[in-house]
């Protein structure tokens, strides 16, 4: 878990609602940052902190759905909660399908808002963790020599040392040595772990 406190980013062009909801979130103990338009939110470089975004659906200029598409395109992991003065079913279905955490309408009850924020933050934390784990595995994998990577690719298909040796045109002893090296570099013992790694990093034989 990251040591930084999670931040709720609020994007709304309504000059009275934005401070009000921000105030409520602050009272609830959340770090907040406010933006009066989607364009402003996208332009601003964000710190790498856990968090989520509360966004108004209808805004002059870029609207909430466009912001969602833009974030998805740039690989941003922050979950989105839509908060709108008037939502219709097709739009909400569309937003949820595109991965929105929730779709709330104004006025929103505190319990509902906090619950949605809590879920979004938990999801973000999970995703960040998974992301970090993958990054770490990738780093370990990068330390392998090309030959070791070849051996690994064969191991995860379930081949025995003898078969790998035949395939790579070498001796079983050499394969064993490579295997010992790569398992110590990756800090993994079982084939099952190696297979999971291969899946996470998308390694194919």
């Amino acid at each position, binding site marked *: 878990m990251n040591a930084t406190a999670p931040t709720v980013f609020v994007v709304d062009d*309504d000059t*009275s*609602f934005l*401070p*009000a*909801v921000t*105030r*409520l979130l*602050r*009272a*609830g103990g959340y770090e907040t940052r406010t933006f009066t338009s989607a364009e402003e939110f996208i332009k601003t470089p964000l710190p790498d902190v856990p968090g989520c975004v509360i966004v108004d*659906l*209808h805004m*002059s200029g870029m*609207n909430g*759905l466009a912001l969602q598409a833009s974030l998805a395109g740039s690989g941003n992991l922050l979950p989105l909660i839509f908060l709108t*003065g*008037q939502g*219709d079913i*097709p*739009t909400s279905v569309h937003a949820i399908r595109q991965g929105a955490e929730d779709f709330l*309408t*104004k*006025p*929103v*009850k*505190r319990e509902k*808002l906090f619950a949605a924020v809590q879920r979004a933050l938990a999801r973000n934390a999970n995703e960040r963790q998974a992301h970090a784990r993958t990054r770490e595995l990738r780093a370990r994998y990068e330390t392998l020599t090309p030959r070791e990577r070849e051996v690994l690719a064969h191991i995860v298909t379930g081949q025995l040392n003898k078969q790998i040796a035949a395939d790579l045109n070498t001796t079983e002893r050499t394969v064993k040595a490579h295997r010992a090296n790569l398992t110590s570099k990756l800090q993994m013992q079982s084939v099952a772990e190696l297979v999971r790694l291969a899946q996470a990093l998308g390694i194919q034989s």
Partner: protein
Amino acid sequence: MNWMTITWPMVAAACLTLALVHLRIAFGDGRRAPHLYFSLAALAVAAISGFEVTLLSTDDLARYQAILRWAVVPIGIMVASVVGFVCAFFGTGRKWLALTAVALNLLAQFANLIAAVPVVRQAVAIHKVQTFGGVWFTVPTIVNGPWNVVDLTSVVLVVIFVLDASINLWKKGEQRRAVIVGGSIIFFFCACRGHALLVEKGLVQTPYLVSFAFLGVIIAMAMELSADVLRAATLARKLRESERHTDLAARAAALGFWTWDINRDEIWASANARALFGVSADEKIDLPRFVDLVHPEDRAVVRTAIEKALSGSGEYQADYRVQLPDGRTRWIAAYGRTEFDASQQPELMSGALLDITQRRQSELELQQLRGQLTHAGRVSVMGQLAAAMAHELNQPLGAILSNAEAAEIFLKQDPPALGELRDILADIRKDDERAGEVIRRMRSLLRRQEMERKPLAFNLLAEDVVRLVNTDATTRRITVVLELSPHLPLVEGDRIHLQQVFLNLILNAMEAMARNQTERRQITLQTRHTGQGQLEISVADSGPGIEPASLPRLFEPFFTTKQNGMGMGLAICRRIIEAHAGHIRAENQPAGGAIFYVTLPAKTSDIKS
């Protein structure tokens, strides 16, 4: 009494019975010729049987000769009937062969009958022979006359005729009938003739068995005939059943049936069909009369449909109205099919009629309803405005709720965050005022008050309208772009009325783009100062544009390019704008899509900085 005096009469009785049964059928309905021939043949065999049994017990030569002479009459009839039966029943025999064989046979028998001394066969002596059972019977000594050759030839011709007819029948696929009837006729004729020869040559000492042989033929014929009768009965039952079903279906669906004999130009119509047209049961209908019954406006349609059915595929389909004698009109859907003769000339057309008046009526009602709905949609611009106002109301209400809930939390803190609470209260007051303003606007809208001239910020007007349609635009995946010139002077006018004009233009633009591909759905609103104290707003869409021919009439009342439009929207817009001393016009953009311009005079005394 011995077995001989019993057997022959039994043959006769059997034949008589069969003859009577088929005589009854022959005089009923259906294919009568085969039954008549059969009855005749069976009667003849019964007679032959009678003659034979008499011959067996005759002791007097003169009497024997007389009976033999007369026995040729039923034999002749028998041969002729069998040939006639095969002709009628098989339908494959050669007529000339049949006629020749029968003529020769009758000629021989007739000659034998009238000559002083029999010319075919003559019994010159008789003697008694004993057979099993100790029965005595008479056997003749026969001398062939000069006409015997003719008789024999005729029998050979009969056999050839039947053989030929059977082979042809076999080729046509009716193997069973060919074998049973044809085969048995040939077999028994040959057997009978051969046996008679043997008896007459004195080689076998048995009675004549002509009637027995012919009984075989009769039985074979009877078997096939009754199979036919059975089949006909089954068919009749099925036909009655299907007729009942058709009748039921026709009555349930109020179907009428008709057949048009094209060459004679006669139209037969079922009672139902006549009722649909309001034509009496005895009136004769031909094509001109039929066309006369059709509603004048639909006659061309009907004529075209008939011509098509007569020349092309033969399928006939037309929906038309008929004028009933009582002045009402009725919608008819007609379906039919043409039958062509061998030279591809239309011969017959037949089909069904269906009363679709009700269907047509509900279609019409549906169309009207749709029109009314569209009208309601147009009227509901007001309703939409109100919904948008409600949306606007949710902003301050949402803010108030959030502020209040935040305040609750701040109050619980120790010490309470009084600074925060003060800010919150100020904000709540502000939001409350804002909500009140929204409600006031809504009320004024619903009251439909008179035009109210006030100084208005042109850009703000545009922004407000765009906010109203934003929800709708998002749902329809339309991008609304606002390009506002800064520092515009104010205009004087009625906010609600002007908003309604802009709203109308934007909603029209949205509708125009309804069929656009998603990647190009954009409405651009521009405001500018044109100089000469005029402000202009333009609403441009990326739709298909306006037909050049429609451009000059676009703002006329009741002129519409929409399928179900009222033609009032733009007319009202022009009225409103002209009441503001302004001007409205439409053009097509060079790059595609329509663009509307609204020009209003700037408020001269006040320039917004």
